[in-house]
């Protein structure tokens, strides 16, 4: 029997705000509020949206040499990650596939790690097994919310001046309405904004303080997905998984030069080979020319009718005002401007390979 879905500490607030609750990775989460996905999406692009992401796993890694040890399971540089800085990375398997993507923050006396909700049960034992001598402490008593959008700095900064001082991918501890929070200037919408880890007992108080700002509205998983898709950000399980490599997924930027050259992480042989010779397929943006959205699984053909790949994420892009998609195509065809066909319900629909993102990222660097 499946376990009953879990609820975050903000569940009652979601219901009060009219959130439509759905099961997501074993959690009962709001997919949308009365404003609707389009409205919430626009709100986040124009003002600020508040997302509950407490279902994601928060982990503390503490112990001697934690940065070096993390480098043995992930291809990013951690020994040179300054205190107060965060880095996007992923765990790789022996075949060079991606086990999960995550954010690692150097919090001074420990590393603070946020992993995907669906994979926390994989990632925690993985870290415990491979980070010899490191304490791996999963945090169950903190909520995580994201405030995202061009007004996020004002919404959060009004309550916490220190937040204004942070640049993209910087993190600090600071008080918000008398509650000590970890505030990190990052997110997964393509907009400026913050992710804020809050002691569970005070999470609702802090969330309500953000929502008291006229420029901040609650936003659900529906808008989160359309926002990250327009921003060209990978969703684990859709665009990246155990079989796809970081090179195929165009995530080379997350593997710093020293790590690419030295290797020393699982699957380095494949990843280094693909870095020098190129991968067979590549994740690209795909823009349908018609109005029909192309969803995950839709076949991509070149104009002569041969199959060259498949859509991994697709839907309607509210800011673009048209369908948008991401998917893998063979590298020879992974060229912006290349015309392709998408086989939607048996019919070939014209589309074009485009550069990602669909909507310019708006980070405060």
């Amino acid at each position, binding site marked *: 029997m499946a376990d009953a879905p879990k609820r975050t500490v903000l569940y009652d607030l979601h219901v009060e705000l009219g959130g439509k609750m759905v099961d997501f990775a074993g959690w009962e989460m709001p*997919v949308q509020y009365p404003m*609707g996905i389009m409205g919430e999406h626009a709100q986040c692009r124009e003002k600020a949206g508040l997302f509950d992401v407490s279902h994601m796993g928060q982990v503390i890694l503490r112990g001697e040499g934690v940065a070096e040890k993390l480098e043995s399971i992930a291809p990013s540089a951690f020994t040179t990650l300054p205190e107060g800085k965060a880095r996007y990375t992923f765990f790789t398997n022996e075949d060079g596939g991606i086990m999960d993507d995550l954010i690692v923050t150097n919090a001074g006396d420990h590393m603070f790690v946020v992993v995907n909700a669906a994979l926390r049960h994989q990632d925690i034992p993985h870290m415990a097994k491979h980070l010899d001598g490191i304490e791996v402490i999963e945090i169950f008593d903190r909520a995580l919310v994201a405030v995202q959008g061009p007004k996020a700095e004002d919404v959060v900064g009004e309550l916490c001046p220190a937040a204004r001082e942070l640049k993209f991918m910087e993190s600090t501890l600071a008080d918000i309405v008398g509650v000590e929070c970890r505030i990190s200037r990052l997110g997964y919408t393509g907009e400026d904004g913050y992710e804020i880890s809050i002691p569970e007992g005070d999470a609702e108080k802090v969330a309500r303080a953000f929502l008291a700002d006229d420029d901040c509205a609650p936003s659900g998983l529906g808008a989160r997905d359309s926002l990250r898709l327009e921003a060209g950000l990978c969703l684990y399980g859709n665009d990246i998984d155990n079989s796809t490599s970081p090179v195929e997924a165009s995530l080379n930027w997350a593997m710093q030069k020293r790590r690419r050259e030295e290797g020393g992480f699982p699957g380095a042989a494949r990843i280094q080979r693909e870095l020098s010779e190129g991968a067979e397929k590549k994740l690209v943006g795909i823009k349908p020319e018609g*109005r*029909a959205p192309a969803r995950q699984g839709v076949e991509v053909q070149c104009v002569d009718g041969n199959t060259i790949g498949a859509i991994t994420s697709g*839907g*309607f892009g509210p800011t673009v005002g048209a369908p948008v998609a991401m998917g893998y195509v063979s590298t020879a065809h992974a060229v912006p401007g290349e015309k392709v066909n998408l086989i939607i*319900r048996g019919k070939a629909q014209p589309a074009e390979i485009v550069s990602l993102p669909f909507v310019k990222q708006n980070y405060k660097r």
Partner: protein
Amino acid sequence: MTTYYSDDHEWITVDGDIATIGITQHAADQLGEIVFVEQKDVGDDFEKGDEIGVIESVKAASEIYAPVDGEVVEANGTLEDAPGSLNENPEGDAWIYKVKLADKAQLEDLMDLDGYKALIG
């Protein structure tokens, strides 16, 4: 004019042997914001239960099923440019097809408004 309703949340009104078909407000509300409607062509025949179109919302794609046998005599072209009108007025201007009924007796298998209201609770 009598309006009939199907289990699949379509409505159908009849004028002579021509019927107008659409989706109910309840269905539109459940689907969320509609961004694309795929329609059959004029002249296409279909049988009750056939898939006669697809409605794409921001979230997902949902099929439209024929509530009766018939033939498409007109597809509402305004849905191509304004699919969102299906959220606003699905039981009015945003009808989906006009069809020629093959067997008017099939209407008797559909629900009236009270029956439909009972279905959606």
